[in-house]
């Protein structure tokens, strides 16, 4: 019973806390630039607004256009639940869960690109091509980081990999993972989520034709992904984890 309650609690935290992070980032950026900036809770307002709106679907689109963002959202949420949170165990920790995490993120990307191609727009296809090209580079970096952690901890479980204290090599790891975080979450200098410069966008191109609840799912998924990468980066570098023997194994 406690496991179920804990699971629900974690789910709630991931779902509710994720949109706070982009709000905080935007606020800090605005302060640095001498502006007041949008409210910290702006993304919550946006999501609430989008949820009440209708959806415009291209006449060319198959049901995959709707399924894409949904699959991507669920995949990112699943990946998030695999991640341990500091001294707290992962909700679904098991040996090899790190591979599932990587594949879930890849699945999310595939679903987004799929939905983009469904629109039949030449530009969305271009965006999908860009996203996948960047992903090839970013995934290689993630896998290298994971291999490093795995080799160091002699384990394929996220809980054990992320627990030990960081050695000097962690500086390199931190730099690499931070770069991946920027690239994967379309932050400056890889992409700029604020400007909406149509033709330079990478990730945003693929979601240009999404609207209403679908766009809400995309935005919320992006926020969760950002939080996921931030949590992964912090735990990979700082010795926050609980390195005692595991209490719970899968299954």
């Amino acid at each position, binding site marked *: 019973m406690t496991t179920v309650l804990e699971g629900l609690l974690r789910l709630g935290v991931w779902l509710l806390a994720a949109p706070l992070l982009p709000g905080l980032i935007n606020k800090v*950026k605005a302060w*640095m*630039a*001498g*502006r007041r900036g949008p409210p910290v809770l702006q993304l919550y307002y946006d999501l609430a607004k989008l949820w009440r709106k209708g959806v415009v679907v291209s006449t060319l689109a198959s049901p995959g256009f709707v399924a894409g963002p949904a699959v991507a959202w669920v995949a990112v949420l699943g990946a998030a639940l695999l991640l341990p949170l500091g001294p707290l165990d992962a909700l679904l920790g098991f040996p090899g869960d790190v591979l599932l995490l990587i594949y879930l993120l890849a699945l999310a990307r595939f679903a987004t690109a799929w939905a983009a191609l469904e629109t039949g727009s*030449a*530009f969305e*296809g*271009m965006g999908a091509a860009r996203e996948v090209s960047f992903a090839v580079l970013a995934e290689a970096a993630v896998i290298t980081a994971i291999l490093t952690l795995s080799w160091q901890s002699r384990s394929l479980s996220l809980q054990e990999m992320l627990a030990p204290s960081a050695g000097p090599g962690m500086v390199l790891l931190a730099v690499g993972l931070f770069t991946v975080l920027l690239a994967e979450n379309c932050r*400056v*200098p890889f992409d*700029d989520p604020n*400007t*909406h*410069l*149509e*033709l*330079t*966008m990478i990730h*945003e191109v693929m979601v*240009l034709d999404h609207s209403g609840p679908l766009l809400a799912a995309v935005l919320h998924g992006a926020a969760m992904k950002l939080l996921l990468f931030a949590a992964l980066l912090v735990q990979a570098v700082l010795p926050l984890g609980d390195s005692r023997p595991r209490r719970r194994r899968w299954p």
Partner: protein
Amino acid sequence: MPEFLDHVGASLTRGGRLSSLFGVPTSEGGALQLVAVLAFDASNTLAVGRSQPFQGAFPALTLHHPQAHLFEREIWEQHGAVPQGHPWLKPVRRDHGAGPAVGGFFRVDGREVHEVAVGPVHAGIIEPGHFRFQCAGEEVLHLEIALGYQHRGVEEALPGGPHRASVHQIETVAGDTTIAHATAYAGVLEALAGTEAPFRAQWLRAIALELERLANHTGDLGALAGDVAFLPTASACGKIRGTSSTSRRCFVATGSDAAWSGRAAAPGNSNLHAWPGYAPDSTPPCVTSNRQPRGSGMPRPSGHGSRTPVESTPPRPAKSGWSARPPGRAAWCGTCGLTTPTGWYRFAQVPVSVWPDGDVFARARVRWLEIQRAGEFLRELFDTAPDGPLQLPLPPPTPNTLAVALVEGWRGEVCHVALTDARGRLERYKLTDPSFHNWTGLALALRGQAISDFPLCNKSFNLSYCGFDL
């Protein structure tokens, strides 16, 4: 008619620059006259030619002189006279009731080629325009731009005037080039009346024009920085731009009413006494306490019919513009300095800003240089405030006259041409914003570039949509 075209063609071959080319409908039987304004920058002269009335078609100049291509398309659109042999005859602003983007576009065939259509509704808050890219992968093979979504009929509203609203219509031709267009309009009216504005008003206009240049160049540099993800500079430039833009707005609200439209503006006048005391290292102070909204109860001793345009209109051009290049020339050459100055620029000149290249960086450097020089010029201006009246009564326009005003706006050459009828009313008023020349330049600059570079390239040109659409 052939004689006219031969002369224009020969002049263009000699290195002339086509500042404007337009049709004037004559009263008898739907015949059309063409008027060409040619600038010879090397010899600092301006030539105006007018054809005999003709009907129907005329041989296109575009075949040998590409700089005429958009003008000839415009003549065809406005008057129906067909430029024979024009290689790409399609509407400039309208498509006969449908949207501008409905017209035919050049298409590149091939299995690997795809077409990307952007606009007129964009993802950001910018003006409406339709861009049609022919791409092979990320590389742009061809770009065609369709504008006209903001066509308001400015040129159609002006004949029969000057009307009471004319000056305000001119001021809104392009919102970021208000001062340049208002100055050109004032210059035209003054030339038609055969008079010249008081020195103090000329001085005021020069200050406002340079402030406009400062504000827009600073904003553009910030926008360029934002596009290459250099956010601190983007923020800083936005802030600085606000200051000079506010200063400019103070002018529009106070001083400009007097300087451009001949109204009394005691508040503006007193405001400006604060300016000579401006510290060199700070931004100019802008006294806003005296600001009067337009149309408030300010005293207006002189009637609306009397205007005192300030920049004396030249028989010759004010400046040659850095953006008034023939389309297709990639080299970026900032010629902000004056080949033949008018107004206050006869007494103090700004050096020409040039950078030896034609890419985005070169355009940014030219803007940077122009900011420096406009700043220095402003300092000189503040030290040389002339005394005397700010306004004089404006005589009515001379009948059957043609007047040209060229003003070096921040984007380049703003060209206004007016013709009066036998009663001294405006018969035809032709506006040429620098954007009119340069949109084609942007389209050509993109060839062979990556499509993701378009926003940056577009911003480095920063052309006006509404100034083109009129």
